């Protein structure tokens, strides 16, 4: 928290929270953690329902900026029964995304977008090929993260440079205090959200309490190992089939890890058409699927799950940091561990890689 300048601060007593969220929802979609079935997800706020804060969301908030499936554009043949042979094609762009707020996201969720930003801002093309679909949503969406108090057994945000109360990548930070929530804006976008009569001015005491809570949360985290050598270690193990075979033994090759991950940004493109009209869809893709690298010839450079798991871990802790100033494309949220049907533990794989590489 300390690393970011606080632009404005406000306090809201719990009783006013629904009213404020309703106010925010005017002209915007407000996403909050909601209980659905037996899980908690980021879903549009429904007036009358309080956000669910007793359990942490199973999914990340990335679908708000990067929908599971979005129509990039649609196409349709023009109708001309007189001359069907010369029908033209009509293209239409998808609608502009609306304004959105994510309230109650986790710190790790906000930091997850750091992995997206350079990729969709055209980093690979020196800024020429920007992804307007993502950038527009990024611009239109404000993020209010809520500081964590206790870690889950799968949490490791602090291994990757984050923390339970970090506001990196967010517009404002919310901290639970007695009877209410302290809201600290760190961007102008965040400050604008705090301009509401439902909020009252915050006091220095409240800010001090929040600081204490943040420190306690950091202290509650187990100690973190150094991952400094991870990029090189993983690269060094690139051809070590036995290592990856052992690490991936329990992997089922499903996409749960990547789809719940706040930083996995890969997509697939398909045209869905009825022969006359159709749409180009961008949908999430997962490197854990064999089809991810399947080539048209039938050749697949990543034939087994060992190769695919190597890519997931390697990408996050080696290939991505090597071209993005050493920043991991992992925010340590631990969702991949928590929701893995086989409990594949990415932390352990990175540590094993460091150990294996040191042993060699």
């Amino acid at each position, binding site marked *: 928290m300390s690393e970011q300048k606080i632009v404005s601060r406000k306090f809201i007593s719990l009783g006013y929270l629904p009213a404020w969220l309703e106010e925010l929802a005017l002209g915007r979609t407000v996403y909050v953690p909601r209980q659905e079935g037996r899980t908690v997800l980021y879903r549009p706020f429904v007036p009358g329902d309080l956000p669910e804060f007793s359990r942490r969301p199973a999914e990340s908030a990335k679908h708000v900026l990067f929908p599971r*499936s*979005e*129509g990039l554009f*649609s*196409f*349709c*043949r*023009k*109708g001309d029964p007189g001359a069907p042979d010369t029908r033209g094609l*009509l293209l239409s762009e*998808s609608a502009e995304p609306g304004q959105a707020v994510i309230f109650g996201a986790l710190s790790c969720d906000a930091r997850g977008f750091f992995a997206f930003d350079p990729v969709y801002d055209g980093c690979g093309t020196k800024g020429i090929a920007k992804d307007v679909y993502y950038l527009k949503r990024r611009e239109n969406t404000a993020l209010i993260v809520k500081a964590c108090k206790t870690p889950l057994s799968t949490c490791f945000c602090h291994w990757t440079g984050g923390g339970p109360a970090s506001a990196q990548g967010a517009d404002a930070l919310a901290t639970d205090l007695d009877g209410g929530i302290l809201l600290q804006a760190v961007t102008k976008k965040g400050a604008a959200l705090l301009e509401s009569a439902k909020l009252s001015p915050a006091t220095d005491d409240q800010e001090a309490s929040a600081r204490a809570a943040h420190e306690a949360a950091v202290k509650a985290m187990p100690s973190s190992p150094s991952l400094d050598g991870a990029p090189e270690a993983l690269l060094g193990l690139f051809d070590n089939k036995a290592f990856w075979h052992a690490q991936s033994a329990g992997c089922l090759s499903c996409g749960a890890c990547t789809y719940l991950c706040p930083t996995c940004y890969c997509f697939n493109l398909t045209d*869905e*058409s*009825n022969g*006359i*009209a*159709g*749409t180009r*869809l961008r949908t999430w893709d997962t490197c854990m699927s064999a089809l991810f690298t399947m080539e048209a010839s039938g050749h697949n450079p990543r034939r087994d799950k060992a190769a695919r798991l190597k890519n997931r871990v390697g990408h996050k802790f080696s290939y991505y940091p090597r071209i993005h100033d050493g920043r991991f494309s992992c925010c340590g949220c631990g969702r991949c561990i928590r929701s893995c049907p086989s409990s594949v533990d990415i932390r352990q794989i990175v540590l094993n890689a460091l150990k294996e590489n040191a042993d060699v």
Partner: protein
Amino acid sequence: MSVLKGQELRIIGFLCNWCSYGGADTAGIGRFVQPTDLRVVRVPCSGRINPLFIMKALLYGADGVLVSGCHPRDCHYAEGNFYARRRLEVIKALLPALGIDPRRFEYTWVSASEGRRWQHVVESFTMQIHDLGPARRLPDAPELDVLKMVAAE
């Protein structure tokens, strides 16, 4: 273009080529008047009918699905309808679990000579579906709305 509003419902039939499609032809040759809702997909054998075709139709827009093949023991391919009978009977159990009225799907056997029977089957099934009315559909993705278009203005 679609089913005739207020008059027809969407009924899809999967018919084996050798018996039931022939039976439907026989009904036509006999000028046996039938309701107009049914649209027939011709397949070589009822054994070719993947039960998922039925589910696909019911989930994606059909109000009723009718399957008809050769009578057991009369399969042109000897055994196809025996497999079909088991598979169709089993897949029926999925409908109530999905919240789809099981009466929206029926299968039967009609031979190439049974034009009258075919007429009766079509009349009865169409009436059954009209009694049930239009089926509720699960929503499709909004990004696929464009697939309903047949031509741009």
